[in-house]
């Protein structure tokens, strides 16, 4: 290992092995405890894995910055860099969040691993030693998962819940057919964004029981999920007209506009909400299947 520096909050190393990372974590925890007035608390509810291809790095870091406050468990960010010689570069941080009205801190651990060369083809063997024992593993996959490729297959096996944002996918709605519902629970942040509109549409019941046409202005992912949801819940065919837009902002059924819900949530809030969900979501699964029609 060729560690560059070690200090209380952060450690980085190039061409490291997992043992180096574990030792760094232990060392940082110990130093962090000495710098605060009481020992930092480690209270974990999950391991949060994220697979972040280079083009998603900036967005992922931004989302996580807003997330740390809510889910201070162990976060493992995997940055695949398939070109070049094999090796792992690591950055380990122990972040101390102050607990309100107390002199103690809560420790969150963030492990950033850049997987060079063929290391990016065997991510499960790298992360398994770092998972918090006995707690669920959430995998956030940035961009379109290459279902069938080794890295996706391995990490799906490791996780208890796969979290995607199909708005990041270029090939919806067809890609919904590849979601591994039978192997792990799946969540879709695009689906979460439709929730206020689904509530608003539910408020139109029973007036929309015989709905025949849906008009949606918004991203194609949310629009197709909304259409799939209505088809599956009403168990009827539905003509759908899409108009592309940055955000979901207009929905009408049979020409009647649906009342717009109030405020949308931030990216961090949306991911945070998904990390609070356990188990399969049959309504989403049915909506995704029906979105392909």
């Amino acid at each position, binding site marked *: 290992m060729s560690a560059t520096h070690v200090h209380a909050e952060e450690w980085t190393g190039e061409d490291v092995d997992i043992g180096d990372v574990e030792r760094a974590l232990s060392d940082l925890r110990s130093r962090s405890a000495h710098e605060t007035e009481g020992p930092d*608390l480690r209270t974990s509810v999950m391991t949060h894995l994220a697979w972040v291809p280079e083009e998603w790095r900036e967005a992922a870091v931004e989302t996580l910055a807003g997330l740390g406050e809510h889910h201070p468990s162990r976060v493992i960010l995997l940055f695949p860099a398939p070109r070049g010689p094999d090796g792992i570069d690591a950055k380990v941080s122990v972040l101390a969040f102050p607990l309100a009205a*107390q002199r103690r801190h809560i420790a969150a651990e963030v492990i950033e691993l850049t997987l060079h060369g063929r290391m990016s083809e065997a991510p499960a063997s790298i992360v398994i030693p770092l998972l918090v024992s006995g707690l669920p593993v959430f995998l956030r996959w940035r961009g379109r998962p290459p279902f069938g490729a080794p890295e996706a297959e391995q990490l799906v096996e490791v996780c208890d819940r796969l979290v995607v944002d199909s708005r990041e996918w270029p090939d919806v709605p067809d890609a919904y057919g590849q979601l591994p519902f039978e192997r792990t629970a799946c969540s879709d942040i695009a689906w979460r964004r439709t929730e206020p509109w689904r509530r608003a549409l539910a408020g139109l*019941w029973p007036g929309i029981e015989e709905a025949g046409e849906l008009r949606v202005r918004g991203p194609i992912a949310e629009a197709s999920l909304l259409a799939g949801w209505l088809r599956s819940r*009403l168990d009827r065919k539905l003509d759908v007209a899409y108009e592309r837009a940055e955000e979901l902002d207009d929905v009408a059924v049979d020409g009647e506009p649906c009342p717009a819900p109030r*405020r949308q949530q931030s990216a961090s809030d949306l991911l945070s909400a998904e990390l609070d969900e356990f188990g399969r979501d049959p309504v989403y699964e049915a909506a995704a299947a029906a979105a392909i029609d």
Partner: protein
Amino acid sequence: MTELAENPLLAGLGPRRTPEPCALVVFGASGDLTHRKIFPALYALADRRLLPESFAVVGVARSDWTDDEFRDRMEHAVREFGRDDFRQETWDWLAGAARYVATDFADEGGEDRLRETLAEVDEERGTRGNRVYYLAVPPSTMETIVVALGKRRAPQGWTRLIVEKPFGHDLGSAHELTEKISRYFAEEEVFRIDHYLGKETVQNMLALRFANGIFEPIWNRQFIDHVQITVAESLGIEGRAGFYEQAGAIRDIFQNHMLQLVALTAMEPPIDFTADSVRNEKVKVLKAMHTPGPKHIVRGQYGPGYVEGKEVPGYREEEGVAPDSATETYVAAKLFVDNWRWADTPFYVRTGKRLPRRETAIGIQFKRAPHPPFEEAATEELRPNLLLVHVQPDEGVSLAIGAKVPGQGMRIRTVHMDFMYGGAFRTDLPEAYERMLLDAMLGDQTLFTRSDEVEEQWALVDAIVSAWKRDRPAFPNYAAGTWGPPSAEDLMRRDGRDWLRN
């Protein structure tokens, strides 16, 4: 929920609890509670989109305000006391739903104006005649309002009545108030609020006990040495002499918050988490509770002293307090719950004002290990296992266990394993009033006190207070900033125990 069964679009949207359209009518809208708690709670609910889209809030008070003045004052209250960043969009929505009626509660014309306003609100906001009346008023005014509301019930929709504590001032008056309310409102429509039950950590006591297989088998007299509950306040009476001189610590805290904490700690597992199942079990505890006699009750009143470095006056020097007042600002008691689970296991409880710090905690002290195979010197720093539920502040749970001190030889000392709410769930804990308001709108009475529960609480308090009438206490008997009178220490020491200091 029949609505879910009939509407397939609601499937998967279940977890969010949104009440039906309704109007919340707050009596006492110019009061402190409305400013500090009710409106900030409404704002927090609105910000999280937990209020129904068709919603209105109508403030009712004597102050001669217009709708706009009321909205301005409530906006200030939300900005000052709200737990969230102020969001104009949320406030505009809530302000748009707010109306105000200036009236004396005994004024027939005022009641008619309120009825007209509510009819307008039903028309404009679609609240469908559904009403939640919040009586944030002194007990003396309550009866007048109850009668007026009862006589003017809306012809359609449902009605719920939230009643603030204190509910009566003894068993007789509580029973009388229940009788009067029941002439107009069914028990299912009455929501007696004890905001302690809305606190996350109080509810977590139920989760801790009944969702964890490891605790319930040892939650009994065989393994628990005693239970001690502290509800300590560092504040004085904060200008509430009029109320406090009549109530004292026993009616302000002991009768409601304290006995609720005892009931939640001692109750048997309910068969489900419905309102009546939970409350049935709490009532059984209250019925089984007794104190072994006047010697096991300590009352106190603070004199001058120092709290958090500041010199503070004694109770009798507080504005509005009689210079020879015999009102207690401190109560400690040894209680027993006479049932199979708890026979002979003491519950020590204490509550007081001007104590060294604000703290509410439930301590479950387990019996010592029967035969530690270590030398005595190795375990001299070892205390019995203690499960400490921190209700406020520092919400969470600590378990004190013995652990080996690293190094040569065998030395064992006590260490605390902490679960801090803020650590595991880094989300702001909702204020108790948010939960209580939402539950009332939803018609969920689980966290509200039933009439028989209140009456059992008062029966115990009456027994204690009647013994106090026989003698005049030598007050003040503890200095502000201390943990109460020396006799409270004696209460524990006689039994070979001590109050927890952390």
